[in-house]
Every structure is written in C-alpha cells, then in structure tokens.
C-alpha cells in the first residue's frame, strides 16, 4: 500500500495470490482484499488454501514459532517469517467486504486435488462463474507442508489466475504467478525466498519484459534481533523506458505474549498495526495508515469474535472515515454448509452495501 501507483500491477498479483490461497472460503472469495482467513478452520494462518479434512497443504506462519527450550540466554533465534506476513495477523481480524450473493462449492477429488466452483451475483462488481482447482504434490517437507502446490482460477470470460509454489531445497522456496485478462497476459512474476535460521530474504521479479526493457524488482529482508524483535527492509526498483525509480521502506515487528506490534516506515508513508489476542474468543486489531503521496491518513479498529461452541465467527470494524462494517459466519452443522452475511456502511458518503454467501464443502 506504500508503493507508487506504477507498482500496482505487481502487487495486484500478490493480492490475487492471497485470495487464491483460500479459494474455498466465502470470506476470502471476495477477491479485492488480501489476507484471507480459513473459514472456521484451524488457527489463522495455517495453510495456503482452506481444504477439507485429510488434505495436506503447506502452512505459512506469520508469528515465529516459540522454541521448546527458550530458557537459555544464548538460545538460537527463531525464523521471523516472511516480510509480507508481518501485518497479516492484524489484517485477518478485519472483515472482508461482501457484496451481492456468492455461492461456493468445494469438492476434494483426492488427497492431492481439489476443485472449487464459485457463482457470484453482484450489483457493484461483475457477476459470473469461476472455476478453481488446487493440486498438492507428494513431496512432504513437514507435517502439514507438501509441495509442489499449483493453484489455478478461471472465470467465464477466460481470465486466468495461476500460481505454482515449490520448495526447491530445505531453505529455498520459489513461486511463479501469472494473471491474464481473457487472452492477454496482464501480470507475471517470479519470486525466490530463502529461509535461514534467524532470517528470511526474498527476491521478486515482476512483469519482466526483455524486449521493452522494463520490469519491477522487489527485495525483502527480515532478521530476528531478539526472540521478540524482528527488523527488516524492502527495496522496490522499477524500470521502464523513460522512467526509473526505487522505493525503500523499513519494518520493525515486536511480538509479545499475546500481541504483535508492527511498524513499516518508508518514503511513501507509514503503516502501523497492533494485534491483541485477549482470549480464545476475542482478537482485536488496530491499524494506522498514512500516505504522503495521497496526503491521507486513516485509522481502523477491528475485532473478531470466535465462538466454536456455537460454530459462529463474527468480525466487526470501524474506522476514521466513518465506515462501519461487519461479517457473520455460521456453520450449519451437521450439513457441510457455511452461511456468511456481511454489511458495510459508509456514513460519510451515505452508502450501504451488503452481501450473502453460502459455502458448501
């Protein structure tokens, strides 16, 4: 969000990939937003895709795992996770905007293959049908991690979103993602991520075009300084005929017993998030954003109420732009149905939108 407008295409891929990661989740299927959450599944960030039981998927953790023997003063520092996931824990508390009617049908065809059918009826966005599929390979790295992972999604106009994730070595992971608009390639990117014992580095190449001589290069680095503190930075370099530039930003994340505070500062602005887990039912997130380019600032407060005994998940948000929103997700057991209701009220612009969704499977 801190990047210049000319990088929007590259970061659209990231947002599409995040939405692809939970194809089976109603809340995540409203594609504009990143950071999908597994619908009533296991804790926040486990797995790239919401999957039926017995289906193993790679898990990505945004909070560094606590080591079993952390008492020694000189114990090894944990891996800090990836740069993009630093703000994710707070972002996942906020409800996704829902508009119109959405029907999602998930079907696991085998332990490695899953398909998803999505029908969307919307007044604001486009209505249509999307077919998605996910393949998970048999190269098992950990208890819940298998590679390669191939995720594809196509709509009724022929526009395709696809990504392939593979673990090349024990520390190096690669991802290739592409997006087409009907027959035309809109975005394509490749990234390599290296996870060390106490650091993570990644390089992403977006929309490289050798003929025109343009492209976007993004570098990330995140280092654990202490078991609670991680510092990192991002460098974005873009080049196209007649224009060349770079944007840098710094990131700091502090993890407490039940909270995570993250701050990103860059030339384009600042982004601060605070995530607090009050108890097993209640999680609260506070987000602050300031853009020097757009000369705008905003603050949002969100909360998530999880009542597993009632199979209920409620998320609410209010922000400084006089917007109030909420989503309610309820599993209709014993049927494999999940019902989702969402509404958003913009008091300043006098606008209201609501949505309704059903997920089967």
């Amino acid at each position, binding site marked *: 969000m801190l990047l210049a407008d000319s990088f929007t295409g590259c970061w659209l891929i990231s947002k599409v990939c995040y939405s692809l990661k939970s194809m089976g989740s109603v809340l995540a299927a409203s594609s504009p937003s990143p950071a999908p959450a597994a619908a009533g599944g296991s804790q926040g960030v486990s797995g790239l895709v919401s999957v039926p039981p017995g289906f193993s998927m790679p898990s990505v953790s945004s909070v560094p795992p606590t080591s079993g023997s952390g008492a020694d003063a000189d114990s090894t520092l944990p891996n800090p996770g990836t740069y993009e996931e630093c703000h994710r824990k707070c972002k996942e508390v906020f409800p996704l905007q829902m508009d119109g009617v959405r029907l999602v049908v998930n079907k696991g065809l085998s332990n490695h293959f899953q398909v998803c059918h999505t029908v969307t009826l919307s007044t604001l966005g486009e209505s249509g049908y999307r077919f998605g599929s996910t393949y998970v390979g048999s190269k098992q790295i950990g208890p819940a991690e298998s590679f390669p992972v191939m995720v594809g999604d196509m709509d009724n106009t022929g526009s395709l979103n696809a990504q392939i994730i593979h673990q090349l070595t024990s520390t190096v992971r690669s991802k290739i993602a592409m997006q087409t608009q009907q027959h035309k390639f809109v975005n394509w990117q490749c990234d390599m991520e290296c996870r060390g014992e106490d650091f993570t580095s990644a390089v992403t190449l977006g929309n490289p075009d050798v003929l025109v001589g343009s492209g976007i290069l993004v570098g990330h680095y995140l280092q654990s300084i202490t078991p609670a503190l991680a510092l990192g930075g991002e460098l974005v370099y873009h080049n196209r005929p007649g224009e060349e530039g770079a944007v840098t930003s710094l990131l700091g994340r502090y993890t407490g017993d039940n909270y995570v505070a993250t701050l990103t500062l860059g030339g384009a602005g600042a982004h601060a998030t605070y995530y*607090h887990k*009050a108890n097993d039912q209640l999680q*609260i997130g*506070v*987000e602050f954003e300031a853009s020097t380019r757009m000369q705008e600032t905003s603050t949002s407060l969100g909360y998530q*109420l999880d*009542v597993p005994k009632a199979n209920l998940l409620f998320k609410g948000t209010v922000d*400084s732009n006089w917007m109030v929103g909420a989503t309610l997700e309820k599993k209709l057991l014993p049927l494999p149905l999940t019902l989702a209701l969402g509404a958003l009220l913009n008091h300043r612009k006098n606008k209201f939108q609501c949505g309704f969704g059903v997920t089967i499977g």
Partner: protein
Amino acid sequence: MSGADGKKGPSTSVMEWIGTACRFATDRNDFRRNLLVNLGLFAAGVWVARNLSDFDLMSPQPIT
C-alpha cells in the same frame, strides 16, 4: 495608554493562538492535523485493546 496597550498585547496573542489552534483542529483538509488525530485514535485503539478486552464470553452467567 501604553499600559492598556501592553495588557491587550499578550491577551491578543493568546486569542490569536487559540484561534489558530481551533482552525488547525477543525481543518479536515490539513494533512498534519489528520495525521495527529489518527495517531491519537491509534493510541486510543491500542489502549482499548490492551485494557478493555478482558471479558470472557463463555463464563457462566451469575445466578440472580
């Protein structure tokens, strides 16, 4: 005369300062003002999250 002018001087400057502060606080188009307001809201949100979220929904209801 000069004494009256001297008394009016500090009070006038104070009034001007108050007027400037009020215009700054109510100018929604001012980026610095919006930044300070939102920073205050962020701090208030963090305080609320840390201090007012210690209730348990699953605790048994009190018997009345």
